[in-house]
């Protein structure tokens, strides 16, 4: 029963992805490996589309992933399952502990989780690099130097202070133009 599976998996993501939309990416990548609802390269496209369309990125990605898995009902179920844990948790916090983020234990938990979220997103980048920066061969992977060079140049540009505030849309558009020009 795909709807139940979707609900269960996205509820889990909603519960364990802490720190916003980007934190859901490693979980969504693992889903593609586990169920094959979408390929890794489809997933990378989904991330780009989710960042360039209206709405919170995390919700856009969940809706997209759910749609790929099981059409419109899948999109609805994935999105509602994703927000459900937070809905309950936030209401409990609003009712019982309004100074939640000042609580020392909460701070301690979060101090532990923050470096981990960064690591898990790097893990997701490594997974994504298999389809965007490496070429699959019979014996494994070999680097695609054109793609790697483009990625490094884009990354360095992003770290230039004056370009830091550019909207993600600009980078995605740049990626599209580069892809068309270099026939990637």
């Amino acid at each position: 029963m795909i709807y139940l599976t979707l609900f269960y998996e996205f509820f889990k993501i909603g519960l364990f992805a802490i720190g916003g939309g980007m934190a859901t990416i490693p979980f969504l990548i693992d889903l593609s490996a586990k169920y094959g609802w979408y390929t890794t390269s489809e997933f990378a496209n989904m991330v780009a589309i989710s960042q360039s369309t209206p709405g919170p990125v995390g919700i856009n990605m969940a809706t997209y992933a759910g749609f790929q898995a099981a059409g419109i009902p899948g999109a609805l179920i994935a999105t509602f399952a994703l927000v459900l844990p937070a809905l309950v948790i936030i209401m409990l916090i609003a009712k019982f502990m309004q100074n939640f983020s000042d609580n020392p234990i909460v701070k301690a938990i979060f101090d532990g989780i923050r470096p981990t979220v960064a690591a898990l997103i790097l893990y997701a980048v490594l997974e994504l690099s298999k389809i965007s920066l490496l070429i699959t061969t019979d014996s494994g992977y070999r680097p695609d130097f054109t793609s790697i060079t483009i990625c490094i140049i884009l990354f360095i540009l992003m770290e230039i202070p004056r370009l830091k505030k550019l909207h993600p849309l600009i980078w995605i558009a740049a990626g599209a133009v580069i892809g068309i020009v270099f026939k990637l």
Partner: protein
Amino acid sequence: MKKLWELYASFFRIGILTIGGGLAMLPMLKREVVDKYHWINEEEMMDIYAIGQCTPGIIAVNTATYIGYLQGGILGGTIATLGEVSPSLIIIILIASVLRQYMDNAVLLHAFAGIRIAVCAMMLDTVLLMIRKGVKNVLGVLLFFGALILATFTPVPLPVIVILAGAVGVIAFRLRKKEGGMKS
């Protein structure tokens, strides 16, 4: 009834004007909930946003749930959440359905190959940002590499890694407190 409609419409507008996620929503949020409806003041808004950052789920949605709950209880929180996710559901389902029919177009395929490289670079940028904000001491470095190794080379499920990291954070906090207590 009017209040519930206002909550839905207000967070629908916030959702639709948040492109790219994260801090992008704050100016729009302020305009709606502080300037227009006076549901909360700016300081409360930043507190709620901070709570949304250290709770599970999508930050923008958590903020919507919280403010909705303050205004209209459980129903208010649910309606505000629905308002926040509605634009995503509509827009992503439309885009996903349309894109499905054009995904064999050569130009589009090149564009997306380039976009996937940009996505890798953007995610690396996110990792760097999160390291700067979240990895502050030796423990943070250990947690970062520990999580990266567990995620990349072992079958340990991601939720388990997150729980372990939170537990390490609490244990470190207790040890620090004990040490501090003995010194004083």
